[in-house]
Structures are given as C-alpha cells and as structure tokens.
C-alpha cells in the first residue's frame, strides 16, 4: 500500500509518515503543491493525504487538477479550518474525506484504511465475527457464544462499525458521523453513553472484554 502525503509542516508530516510506516504503508512525502501534483500524476498511489494550505499550489487546486485529469486516487483533505463551508468545498471538488487539524493519528489512519477499502471495491461480508461474537447483517441477529443479544438500531450500527473496523481505533467524531450522520461536535457525551450501553449488552455477562477505550482518542474492538 502506497500513500502520497502533501503537507508543508515538517513535524506533522514526520509523525504521519512514521505512523503510516508502522501501520505498513509506504509513504511519499512532499511539502510543495506542485511537486505533489507531479507525483500524483506520474506515480500510482492507493490514497493521498493533502493539506489545503500549501506552497506552490494550494491543496484544493491540486485536487481539482487531479480530478480533471481523471486520477481517482482516494483523497483525504487536511485543513486547519473547521467551518462547514470549507468542509463542503473540500468534498465537492473531489476530496473523499475531510479532517480538521488538530487530529488524532489513529483517526487519520482509520480513515485512510476505510477509504482504501471502499475504493478497492471489496464487497463487505454479511457475516461479521470477532472471537465468539457474531453478527448477521441481513437478519440483524447477534450472538455471543450461545447467547442471543438484542440491540436497538443505534447500538447495532455502532457494533457493526466497530466490528468492521476491528483492531482500528475509532474516534468519537467518526462514531458520531457514522451512527448519527452528524458532522459537527455537539459537545456532549452521547457517544460515551452509547458505548456504555453497548458494553452492558455485549460484555457485561461475559468474561472477555472486547471494546477498549483508548484515552483521548476513542474506542477499539480487539480480537485478543
């Protein structure tokens, strides 16, 4: 897996590059928009992470140019602006996802992986299994061991999201976006409440904990 990173802040670029390498990605990094465009046009990448404010050529123009040249690499837009307008603009011109600085690396990684999975066209399985927990997407049946578990729609949606991304940390923002289709932070603990309810139903009676809290980042469903 190969990722293009166009980001002019050296420190941010360095921690993204290192993190991606640890996660098994090869990363090409450039600080300049024009170089970035050049690389994206001539090399083949599985995903690109592009900052909006760049020297040479700004990120939005870069993405526009790529899309005009029919390069369909999935792109995550990084921005220091968090207004809804900027987000909409970033997505309209051809960005596939939008992340506001400061962000957690885990979230960036999860989003990159989700994008690559989506664009690779792998059909999502209808049966999800993590250890003794299994979920049938069609019949909406959930069992842990021999026990049947009843979940309400939002709880089901969260569990499905966690299971599809097992081993990956999901931030509260990502959960809000996925479960409620909310793309702003309502500044509440509704995600914590939902996770708490889900834990009660999925873990309380069982010895092995599946859902783990990663402080300051979010939640992850772990197999081991």
């Amino acid at each position: 897996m190969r990722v293009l990173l166009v980001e002019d802040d050296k420190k941010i670029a360095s921690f993204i590059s290192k993190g991606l390498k640890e996660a098994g990605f090869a990363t090409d990094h450039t600080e300049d928009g024009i170089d970035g465009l050049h690389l994206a046009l001539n090399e083949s990448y599985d995903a690109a992470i592009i900052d909006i404010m760049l020297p040479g050529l700004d990120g939005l123009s870069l993405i526009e140019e790529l899309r005009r040249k029919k390069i369909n690499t999935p792109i995550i837009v990084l921005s220091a602006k968090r207004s809804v307008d900027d987000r909409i603009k970033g997505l309209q011109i051809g960005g596939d996802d939008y992340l506001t600085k400061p962000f957690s690396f885990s979230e960036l990684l999860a989003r990159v992986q989700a994008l690559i999975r989506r664009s690779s066209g792998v059909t999502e399985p209808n049966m999800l299994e993590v250890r003794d927990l299994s979920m049938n997407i069609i019949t909406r049946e959930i069992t842990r061991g021999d026990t049947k578990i009843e979940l309400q729609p939002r709880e089901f949606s969260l569990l499905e999201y966690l299971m599809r991304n097992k081993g990956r940390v999901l931030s509260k923002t990502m959960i809000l976006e996925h479960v409620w289709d909310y793309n702003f932070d309502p500044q509440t603990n509704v995600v914590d409440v939902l996770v708490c309810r889900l834990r009660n139903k999925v873990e309380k009676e069982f010895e092995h904990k599946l859902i783990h809290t990663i402080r300051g980042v979010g939640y992850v469903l772990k197999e081991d």
Partner: protein
Amino acid sequence: MLFSTGYLFLSSSLKSRDQDSVQLKLEELSALYQSGGIDQLKREISIGKKFVEKNPFLIRLADRHNRTLVLILPYQWLESDLKKLEDMDASEDLKWIRLPIKDKKYEMEVGSVFLKKSYILQVGKSNEEREKILFHFREIFSFVTIPLILLGFAGGIFVAHKSLLPVRNLIATLRSIESGKMNARVASRQTDDELDELIMLFNRMLERIESLIRGMRDALDNIAHDLRTPMTRFRGIAERALQPDRNGESCEEALGTCLEESDQILKMLNTLMDISEAETGTIKLDLEVVNVSILIDRVLDLYRYTAEEKGIHINFSVQNDLHSGIDQQKMGQVLSNLIDNAIKYTPDNGYIDIDASREDNRVVIRIRDSGMGIPEEELPRIWDRLFRGEQAHTQRGLGLGLSLVKAIVQAHKGVIDVSSELGKGSTFTIILPSKN
C-alpha cells in the same frame, strides 16, 4: 480679452484718425498747388510758419532731388532727425514713414506725395496725443481691471476652498484613522445636502468598523484569557510526568491526561471562536426554511439513550407545519446544548417538556426541565462566558454552552429567555422570526 480687443480697436481707430487728418492736410496743400502753383503753396506754408505753436503738423516741401525748400516743424519736434525724410524716394502714391523723435517715446508719422513729379510734399503728425489716450486706457486697465481679475481669482479660490472644506475634513479624518485613531468622526454640517449625507454614511461606516474591530479585539483578549487556565493544567501534567521518580505507568497515565486536556482546549477554542463569530456578527448563517419539528427530532435522536439511561421522560409536542429560516447546523447546536443541559440537571426519573408553536407569527420553542432550577441571583449571569453556577460544579462542562446558545439565537435575530424556580426546574424559551 475684452480689454485687449477694446484696446486694439481704440488704437487702430485713433491711428486712422491721425492718418486721415494728415491725408486731409496733404490733399488741401496739393489742391493749393494745383490751383496756384508752387508759389502759392510756398506762401501758404510760410503763413503757417507764423502760427507754429498752433500748427500740429510737420510740413516739408522739397524739389525733385529732395532738397528742402520750405520746412515747418512744431517747436517741440526740433530734435527730430529729418535725415530720413531727405533720404526718401519720391513716389506718386501716398507713402508713410515713421520718424522717431529724439528722447521721446513718441513718433512722427509722415505722409509723403510727389506733386506732378517735380516737388515732394511731406506732412507729418506726432502720435503723442494718441499715445496719451492709449496710455490712459492702459492706466485704467491696470487700476481697475487687474484688481478686478485678482479679486475674481481670489473669490474663486475662496469659494472652492469653502465648498471643499467638508471633503478636506473627510480626508483629515481618514488620515487620523490611518494613524490608528479609530474613534475619529467627521463633524456634520447640518445642511441636509448630498455632502452631509455622505458624511453621515461615512460616519456610520466608521461606527460599524470600529465596533467590529472592538468586538474582535475583545474576543481575542477573552480567548487568550480563557485558554490560559487549561494550558496551565496541560503544562502542569506534562511537567509532573517528567519528574525523575515517575515510572512508565504513571507517564502513560499523564500522557493520556494530556491528550484529554488538549481535546478540551481544542473544544474550548472552537466554542470560543463560534461565540465570537456570532457576537461580532461575522458569523455566516446558512439560512434555509426548515421544518422545526424535524430539526428538534434529529437533535432528540442524539439524546434518546442518554435520557433513557437516567430514566428521564421527554415529552415533545410540536405544531404542524412550523417553519422558520434557520441555519440547521447552528440551531442544532443551540437545541443540543439546551437539551444536554436539561438532561444533565434533571434528576433521575424526571421529565423534560419540549414544545414548539407559532405565536404572533413567530416561532417559539420551549424547553422545560424538572431539574434543580437556577438561583435567582445567578439567572442574569448564566449567559456569561465561563460562568458556572453553584450546582453546575458537579457536572462536567466548559461554562460556554449558554453563551454560544445566546450568541447564535441573536445572530438569527431571535430572542432567548429563561425562567426558573429553585427545586422545580427551568424553562428556556427561544423566539425566532417565523421566516428570516
């Protein structure tokens, strides 16, 4: 212009009058010569010699070789140089010659004719008189016209100066603003004309700019101030973690806290920015006609489980077809803040009533909780930034929620009000224009 035309006209008419009189004299003398011959002419000229003072003419009679036969000169012309006359060629037609008079500014204009190709007759007249008149004319000009012109110029300058005074005031005000004096204003002239209106509009614009800048400066001060506390906490945690006696586990713990603190700071910064934007009017509202019922439903959906966990029952009643021009996302924030508060401060198994209706063509949304209520002395302060009431300290929160709520509602040209009874609950009422 008028003067120079008049002057030219006057001088040419005076000149032709002089020439006419010389010509007349020439004709008179020629006629005498025709009738009485040269002797008669000589006699006549000689008679004139006796009245030389009265005779304004120079008369010279010469033979065909231009040798002087008779010469009459007015006495004041004695100095004239007659050489020029003697050098003149004889010719049949009338010829004019100018003769300068020594030491005087005047000249003599001499007309000359050839009498039957045997005698030359020359009659001259000084232009003294003419020059005197013209001199007077010039004098009048310099005494009357020049001051008049100067006066005109001065008057013009004065009028222009006076009518441009407000414009210059405007420029001066602009200059002082450029040098940082934001409260400078242009004084109104109370004349009710276009210029006065311009000044008024200009002042109004300055007013608006000043209030915007002041608002932004205050907001920046507030943000800087409000961020100091969490930054201090953040720093303290990191510093403690770096103490030599700390082990790996407690470092991990500290790092986790740092992450949480940084999220908290970010959240605070975002909220403060939102409040400032809304308060200074720089907020960009994405207004669309929204079904209020759907909007509230969407927010409630977020809190369903939270309320359920506490056993709180939410009653929601809304009038059908209730619409308002709203920025969905921002009004969603308002409602979610208020509902979040209501749930937080309502004890287990309490209730929350939400109703929305149209009253006097306005949309009224009421959120009533059965919580602990707000003490009367705290009521006016709940909208203040970072104010947290006595009871609020048991709950997590930034103390910014209600400031944001108020700022967004006001940005929508709406009103928000609160009433509360200790121990019974509080009611927040949002009143929005039916269609923005």
